[in-house]
């Protein structure tokens, strides 16, 4: 293994661990912010770490079959593969993003969710199946505007490579994609709400309706893996969106700051809005965001 690929491997591992820790850190900040809005004190900052350690220290290991055990692990692999494909800055931080472009990232991102669907199918909990069905319908909902936004972006930059897109955005804020092509930016932001599974669209794991949805059957260690993958997933998506629409980041700290600021947006929307009914999520995404998406595409093509 050449020293170059060795260095790259070490940096990847560092980034993965960094994303876990940073994911939990964002999660705890989010909990504090929701607490403050809800006029209460909220948990201590290190609470997510305590939760994960406690879940790992659970004694029992209940599983209904091999698929249920594999589900979270497959999800972990899915998320790690998306992580390494996203560039986080210059040099080694671009990890392996050179050999995969936007479409591969999109494909691999959905891989974790499908694995989850199979695992829940094995678990046999009715709420799980309903939760997964809702998750998939929601994915259909937000995939359309997302793809429209990404296609128009590719059309504008004439290449699907993320690094190229970042390169095109260098210079001041003015020429960040979100501002240069407002329609594309808006559709992406609206689609992002669906991806984040926060309030307006958290029908998949709505406690009141389907008792925490797909992860109803997963306790103890599985739940721990779920939480870590969730944290990494948040970081991955935000990093991707920052790269595509907000000009990437030269060094890691600016990227972290941008991720946090972008994270605030779905958080605040989630805090003040109840959740849509199942059909409405569908209709919501396929009405305004899609329309704006088509306009953006039209501008991009002609």
């Amino acid at each position, binding site marked *: 293994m050449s020293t170059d690929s060795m260095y790259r491997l070490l940096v990847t591992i560092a980034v993965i661990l960094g994303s876990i820790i940073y994911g939990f850190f964002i999660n705890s900040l989010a909990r504090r*912010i929701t*607490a*403050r*809005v*809800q*006029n*209460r*004190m*909220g948990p201590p900052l290190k609470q997510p770490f305590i939760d994960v350690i406690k879940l790992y220290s659970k004694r029992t290991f209940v599983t209904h079959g091999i698929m249920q055990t594999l589900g979270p692990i497959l999800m972990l692999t899915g998320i790690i593969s998306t992580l390494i494909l996203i560039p986080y800055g210059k040099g080694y931080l671009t990890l392996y993003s050179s050999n995969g472009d936007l479409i591969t990232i999109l494909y691999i991102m959905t891989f974790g969710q499908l694995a989850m669907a199979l695992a829940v199918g094995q678990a046999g909990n009715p709420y799980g199946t309903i939760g997964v069905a809702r998750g998939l319908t929601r994915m259909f909902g937000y995939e359309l505007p997302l793809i429209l936004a990404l296609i128009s972006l590719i059309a504008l930059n004439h290449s699907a490579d993320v690094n190229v897109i970042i390169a095109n955005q260098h210079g001041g804020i003015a020429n960040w994609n979100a501002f240069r092509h407002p329609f594309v930016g808006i559709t992406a932001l609206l689609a992002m709400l669906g991806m984040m599974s926060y309030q307006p669209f958290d029908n998949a794991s709505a406690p009141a309706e389907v008792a925490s949805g797909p992860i109803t059957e997963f306790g103890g260690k599985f739940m721990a893996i779920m939480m870590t993958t969730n944290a990494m997933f948040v970081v991955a998506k935000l990093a991707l969106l920052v790269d595509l629409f907000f000009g990437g980041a030269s060094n890691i700290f600016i990227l972290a700051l941008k991720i946090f600021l972008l994270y605030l947006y779905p958080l*605040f929307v989630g*805090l*003040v*809005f109840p959740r849509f009914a199942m059909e409405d999520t569908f209709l919501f995404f396929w009405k305004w965001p899609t329309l704006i998406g088509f306009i953006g595409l039209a501008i991009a093509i002609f």
Partner: protein
Amino acid sequence: MIDIKGILGPLSALKFLGKAPHTIDYPKETKKTADRYRGIHYNDVEACIGCGSCGTICENDAIDMVNVGFDPNKADTGFRPVVDYGRCCWCALCVDVCPSGSLSLTKDYVYVDDDPKKFLYVPGLQELGKVNIDSTDDLKELAKIEKENRPKLKEGERSWYQKDRTEGLLEFNRVPMKELPGSTRIKSFAEVVLGYTEEEAFMESIRCLGCGLCISACPDRMHIPDYIQAITERDYNSSANIIYENNPLPEMCGKVCTRQCETACVYHNRGDAVAIRWLKRFTTEQFDDFRTIINAEVKPLNGKKVGIIGAGPAGLTVGYYLRLRGYDVTIYEALSKAGGMTMAGIPKYRFPLDSLDKQISYMEEMGVRIHYNTRVGKDIMFDEIMDTYDAVFIGIGFHDPYDLGLKGEKEAKSGVISAVELLRRVNFGEKVDVGKKVAVIGGGNVAIDGARVSKRLGNVDVTILYRRRVQDMPADWEEIEGAEDEGVHIVPQAIPEEIMLDKNGKVTGIKYVMAEMVDDGKGGRPRPKKIEGSEKILPIDTLVGAIGQQADYSFLPDEYLFKTQDDEKSGSKKGIDTFWGRILVHGYNETTMKKVFSGGDMVNRTADAISAIADGLNAVKGIDLFLQGGKETKVNHSVTESDLDKNKLLDKHYKMKHENGKLVSVKLDLSGNIVTESVKIAKDPDELKKDVEKKEVNKSTDKANSKDKTMSYPTKNTNGETKKEEKKSKSKKKSKKKKKKK
């Protein structure tokens, strides 16, 4: 189409980001609990009287009454509540129903534990959770903890308690009894107390909590809560039947009883007790004839005959119950009306003439023969009675007044009369001329009655001379109040010296000297000491002496009467032993003479009607046992040392002690050391041993239905006053109430 207001409006909720949250960071800062928060119990174990009302009202059966080691007395059962926090719902009904107001809830509520055994808790004696109680039985040593290390109530901690008598579920004020106003009372002998209407009786009887403490105070053990409950249900028949179970003269007790039960009532220490006497009276007023009401089954005559001397309360009770048990009873009464001391000694405004007629006619109709105006010893000889009857009961009471022992008493021809004599004459309708000014010497009920009666014989100026202070007077405070209302002057601390006579022996005045109270140093009653040179003379027309009575034993032939205190032969089986004028009786009121039983004022010291009835009831059991199989052994007729002690015959100036097998009575002076070696009662040691075994035998039979004959004064009531101080505080309370009324 897009609802802008609906989208942007909620975002205003984000303004809370800047504000500080209103969360209470519990372990560090806590919210002040309200003053009334119902938290953990606290019980002031000194004020608590263990009546069990809290345990009875608790709907979750969370409170048990447990023997924690306090020694019970008449006004306190010695039990304390233990609260089971595995049942309690903190509704504070127990606090609202606590008559003594000792139970309360505190503001402290946090208690967490992992051992369910620690949720049992005696409030006021234990810290919650410190003690692991395995069974409520082993809490007896709790009372031994001194006051200091019992859990104390922190200042201001009591959250839910009865601030005053108006809070809570109990009605502390008695339904007021209608009385004739003072001015009209004097004009006639009409009855002063007018009695309850049906509605008033219902309101008064429903106050009773039914806890039963009054039963323990009544010498005759009447079933008080049961008949009060019958009055509440307006079922007067069964109420009368319950009374008749152990009291054949309800009207007498309803009007003139000394009400020991009301002093023991739970309401007594914080308010007015339930008017038990007036309720009993109310039941009797409902019927004009007991024959149809009382359905006691009368056994057919079994051939045995019992003679009764004296138709006082004791005699009548024995007559009634023996007749029920099938004995042929005849009563010899010296006076013209039955009722004994109550009929002769008590003036008509308190005890009207006809009040016993109903009971007497019921008894006579049942077959009890009463020979009036036949004095034993004059119209019929005692020996004749002893032969004709299988058993004899002596119940002649104390009719013979003490003489005053003043200078000039013997020489006085007219103008000096004893209160008993005066009352008997007035009661039986004689016209007695007492002149314009009357002085009464003495402080008991009889003195007061004498004064009020003489007040009614025309407008007479009456003064009472009493050696000690007003509050030391043994009379009922109601009586003293009544006398003062009617204008009787009371001169306390006046010791009479000499009766001034004119030449033909008529009383003209009384010389008395003032006294000041001197504490006798041993906590006993302070003694009056003359103040030299403070003589005063009170011009009077008649002098009434009321310093106590004694029995008149003239009917007994001498060979039967033994005064144990001063001659040797007493203790033999032939005669009746008496001790300083009182007949010595054994467990079933049997005297030392075979076939002879006795009871009433001649035996017990409490000298009131209910104790006489109690003696009668006890004697009935004795006679029944005695005549059943004819075996004398069941009733052994010999008096042992413990009987004397039990009979409380001995004043604290005398003490019985064993001296080489002989019972010796020793006279003590005030400070308790022996003054004169008094008479030895002849009793050889082996006979004493036999007595003791016999006592064991009898004890077993006694246990079933024995009743303690003599009634000791209730030493201390709950707030630590002796009878006298209690009277004083009561009179103060009454006067306070009167002031309020004006």
